[in-house]
């Protein structure tokens, strides 16, 4: 909503600085986007062209122009300049848009003192006019450029959807009156009716129309609107068209009531019926488009065929044209929700539909009708016929709200007295009476946003000023803290960061093709994606992390180690942790780098799982996107909770990578195995003994099963087993390998003799050779 300061002055006589008003509005009412002059030009004056002379060998004309009491010689190049015109002159010292300074200049050898300007030259956007040449005013008479609106200031309000009452100049005036505590001059309209009787009857056949009023204006002449009116429309952001259309727009901005003018001579009947459209009914709107309607769109009809799509757009056949002499002017109250639906569906949102959608002050429909009818008569040289066409179904009347003062102070945290509260509401021109500690408020129909106690508290709060409220903290005493899971999540992140990994955050929406090879499921699609790349919800974080690796490789950064914790969307939404590693780690580039391999990755994963208190087994597995012989599933308690491995060369190619290792673990699935408790076991005071033994085993035997078998042997005092060497080659067969175990023994109650350990070792090796079909390497 653009507010013309000059227009506002119709209702607020007090002098108000636009910048100050903008500040007050921001702090107490609504956001102000900008305060700008209507024309970005300074030093404009009214001039009258007294005489023009042609200049030899030039298409310019030498003009004598009266500016105030002085006569100026101005050279003008516009073909339309002529004696007798009232024009706008940029005087010596004037500034035009773009910082152009007007100085005395010699043109065609003639001293030219100023410039007669076009609308373009004073910065009017082409969307508001189609003029070429200088702007010729109507005979200005006693008017000045000020009164014609050329020096107006415009405040651009950014209205929130609840403050529909501010979508009119009168509504803004109410607010200004409240904020400045200055009087409001209410509009008064007197209609001078002719002897002609308004022949039109109106009937409402649907609940979607609350009231339908009309007046007839006879004998009008369609022409351009006067300068002041055009300038006010331009200030409001509306293109002037002709006197009749302009008046409907003007009064809509002025009072908030949308109006529509029909050429009465194009309507064959004298009865106008408002009805709900049937499904698939068609209608050609005034933009020439045939519209297919839906059941419940509001139609204005001549009793038989539609003449307008109520509240949204008029019809082509009944449009006001240059030939129009009789106008039927409609002022109606349509259903807000329905107008919203129809205008959105047909993509026909307008200033009018917007106002209907947000809600109209019912008590202004007749005022607007009268004001517009009289203006049309005045501006079109016509007369207003006697009587109003009228049909009403459901017209709002003011409503009561009672508001205990305790609730006001209880919500705002203030200590306002009942008188203070009453005074604030009265500033808003609400009718307030006090009964004990309760404010009884009669809410006028223009304030559709005030329906509840809470609405009134908001009014008191903002007018009083939120910045005057005390500053306190909630008195609620509750225990704050992270949940065990949240604490764990932070711990995991710190651990990975400590290892040198960077946390990435990537987009949840992806392209399903990126997930091929990691998952077979189709993924969940959004209905109207913004781009191909962001059309489905991801089921794995790894492609996003490979993209991060790719980004860095393309920029000559080959050592990249990243992780992400985020949601994936499988049959249900769960949180996962993913890592992607590429390039040497913890290296010194001038030395031989420690290569990154599967076992570096496995080491990281194992310790992350340790933090969760979980031990997983790594089971060889296959995923199309990963290396067929360097991939494992992570299994906890028989459930697969994730996978890890080297990335397949073909996948690497797709990301322009040389190597990458990835893991993804479902934290959601791991949750069930969280172990938060640390346990104390006394540290043994006795020395431990370690023994080594190597076995020749089948090449395919997983090392883990040997370790597991050793531990499962339940040999006394054996507390740890590790693999310290893996050997293949001569003299072993190709189908064999050697695995060397290191075994740790400890007896908390005593020391070992060699014979004791020998006995335990025999027991162990006997168990292993029997259960696994392996032999000791001697």
């Amino acid at each position, binding site marked *: 909503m653009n507010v013309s300061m000059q227009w506002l002055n119709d209702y607020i006589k007090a002098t108000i600085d636009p910048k100050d008003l903008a500040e007050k509005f921001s*702090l107490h009412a609504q956001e102000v986007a900008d305060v700008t002059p209507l024309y970005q030009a300074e030093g404009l004056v009214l001039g009258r062209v007294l005489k023009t002379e042609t200049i030899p060998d030039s298409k310019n004309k030498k003009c004598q122009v009266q500016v105030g009491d002085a006569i100026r010689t101005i050279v003008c190049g516009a073909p339309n300049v002529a004696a007798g015109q009232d024009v706008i002159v940029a005087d010596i010292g004037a500034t035009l848009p773009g910082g152009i300074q007007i100085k005395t200049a010699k043109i065609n050898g003639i001293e030219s003192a100023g410039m007669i300007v076009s609308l373009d030259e004073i910065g009017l956007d082409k969307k508001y006019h189609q003029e070429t040449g200088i702007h010729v005013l109507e005979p200005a008479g006693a008017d000045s450029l000020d009164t014609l609106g050329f020096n107006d200031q415009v405040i651009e309000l950014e209205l929130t959807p609840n403050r529909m009452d501010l979508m009119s100049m009168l509504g803004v005036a109410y607010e200004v009156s409240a904020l400045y505590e200055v009087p409001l001059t209410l509009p008064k309209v007197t209609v001078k009716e002719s002897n002609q009787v308004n022949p039109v009857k109106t009937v409402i056949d649907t609940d979607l129309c609350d009231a339908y009023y009309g007046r007839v204006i006879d004998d009008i002449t369609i022409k351009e609107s006067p300068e002041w009116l055009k300038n006010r429309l331009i200030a409001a952001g509306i293109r002037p068209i002709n006197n009749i259309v302009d008046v409907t727009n003007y009064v809509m901005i002025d009072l908030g009531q949308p109006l529509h003018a029909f050429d009465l001579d194009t309507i064959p009947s004298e009865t106008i019926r408002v009805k709900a459209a049937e499904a698939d009914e068609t209608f050609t709107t005034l933009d020439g488009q045939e519209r297919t309607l839906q059941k419940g769109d509001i139609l204005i009809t001549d009793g038989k065929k539609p003449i307008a799509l109520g509240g949204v757009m008029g019809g082509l056949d009944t449009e006001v044209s240059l030939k129009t002499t009789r106008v039927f002017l409609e002022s109606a109250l349509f259903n807000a929700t329905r107008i919203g639906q129809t205008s959105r569906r047909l993509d026909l949102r307008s200033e009018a539909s917007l106002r209907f959608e947000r809600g109209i002050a019912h008590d202004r429909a007749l005022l607007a009708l009268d004001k517009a009818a009289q203006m049309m008569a005045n501006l079109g040289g016509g007369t207003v016929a006697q009587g109003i066409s009228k049909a009403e179904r459901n017209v709002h009347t003011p409503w009561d709200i009672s508001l205990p003062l305790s609730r006001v102070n209880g919500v705002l945290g203030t200590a306002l007295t009942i008188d203070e509260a009453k005074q604030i509401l009265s500033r808003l021109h609400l009718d307030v009476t006090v009964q004990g500690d309760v404010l009884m408020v009669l809410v006028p129909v223009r304030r559709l946003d005030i329906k509840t106690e809470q609405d009134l508290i908001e009014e008191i709060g903002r007018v009083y000023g939120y910045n005057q409220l005390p500053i306190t903290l909630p008195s609620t005493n509750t225990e704050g803290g992270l949940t065990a899971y949240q604490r764990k999540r932070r711990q995991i992140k710190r651990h990975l960061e400590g290892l040198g990994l960077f946390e990435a955050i990537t987009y949840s929406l992806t392209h399903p093709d990126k997930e091929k090879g990691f998952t077979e499921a189709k993924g969940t699609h959004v209905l109207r994606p913004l781009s191909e790349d962001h059309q489905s919800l991801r089921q794995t974080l790894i492609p996003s992390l490979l993209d991060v690796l790719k980004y860095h490789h393309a920029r000559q950064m080959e050592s990249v180690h990243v992780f992400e914790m985020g949601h994936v969307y499988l049959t249900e939404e769960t949180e996962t942790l993913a890592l992607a590693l590429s390039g040497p780690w913890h290296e010194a580039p001038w030395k031989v780098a420690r290569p990154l391999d599967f076992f570096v990755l496995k080491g990281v994963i194992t310790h992350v799982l340790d933090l969760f208190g979980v031990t997983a087994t790594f089971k060889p597995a296959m995923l199309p996107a990963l290396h067929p012989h360097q991939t494992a599933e992570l299994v906890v308690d028989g459930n697969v909770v994730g996978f890890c491995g080297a990335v397949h060369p073909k996948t690497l190619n797709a990301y322009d990578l040389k190597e990458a290792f990835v893991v993804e673990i479902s934290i959601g699935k791991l949750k069930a195995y969280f172990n938060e408790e640390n346990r104390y076991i006394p540290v043994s005071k006795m020395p431990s003994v370690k023994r080594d033994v190597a076995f020749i085993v089948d090449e395919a035997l997983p090392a883990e099963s040997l370790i597991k078998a050793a531990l499962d042997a339940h040999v006394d005092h054996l507390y740890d087993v590790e693999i310290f060497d893996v050997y293949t080659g001569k003299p072993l067969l190709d189908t064999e390998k050697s695995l060397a175990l290191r075994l740790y023994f400890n007896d908390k109650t005593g020391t070992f003799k060699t014979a004791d350990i020998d006995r335990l070792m025999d027991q162990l090796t006997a168990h292993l050779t029997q259960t696994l079909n392996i032999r000791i390497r001697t």
Partner: protein
Amino acid sequence: MEAFDSLKQSFLKALETVFKEAELAELKAEYLGKKGKVTQLMQAMKDLSPEERPAYGQKVNQLKNELSDALNAHKEALENARIEAQLATEKIDVTLPGHDMSVGSSHILTQIVESIEDLFIGLGYQIKEGPEIESDEYNFEKLNLPKNHPARDMQDSFYIDPNTLLRTHTSPVQVRTMLEYGGSKPVKIICPGKVYRRDDDDATHSHQFMQIEGLVVDQKTTMADLKGTLLKLAQTMFGPDRTIRLRPSYFPFTEPSVEVDVSCYNCEGTGCSICKHTGYIEILGAGMVHDNVLKMSGYDPNVYQGFAFGIGVERIAMLKYGIEDIRHFYTNDMRFLRMFNQ
């Protein structure tokens, strides 16, 4: 006595020619061993009279000690020389760079979320999380945004089906929490998380971003409490000298609703390009919980009232560090991420 002196001289002379630790043992045996020359001198004592023996013995012992000391000193010198020679071969250029044992870093957005979480944990809040795929009911309807509500235009959303969408704010977590609490106990929570809106990505818009919302519901929660809480938040994020300013606004789920500005940390309120010469920067939206929202989540608005606020994490980071493009957060350039590892 001359025998003593010559023995000593010949020992010292021999010692000077020994340069290997192994040869020292031979020399030691020759003089100080069981059959060594000093031992032989000691054996000569039995030929002396009892009166002469003590003095003689003392002299032999003295000689033995002298030789022993000389031997040990020489031994240590040899050992030192050997170690030094060894160390000399181990010389390195200490100015060469060390192994890259640097730590990584958490994402700047995580850091801001965690610092806000920590502030509110200190104030007695719990952290609540919820799903990113939400029902229309929890994301809109229970927040006083019925279907066809004009304010739904403000948040164009990614729907999955007509009743399911990617949440446009973390407010549904507030709804879930209130329903969980059953309308009878105070709520004091913050809800961080990812949210999604149908905005084309550019320097200031992102179809995915992080939000933190706060909610307090109790019998005496006031708008003054909201102000105090937001002041703490602004000061934690932008420095202890900051002040805040509240301007009226509109959200369907709160009333009164406000936009909150923080005094400009760059110009201290005198006006600069960061605050667009207003002295203030808009940082968040807030308000008193709408009665309808309380009702729909099981709280009686005649007994309970509350406040809520919501803050965009990217916006805070952009303001705090002068980051000019929101897409940087989702590019994950290590050079960018590393800037925030202090």
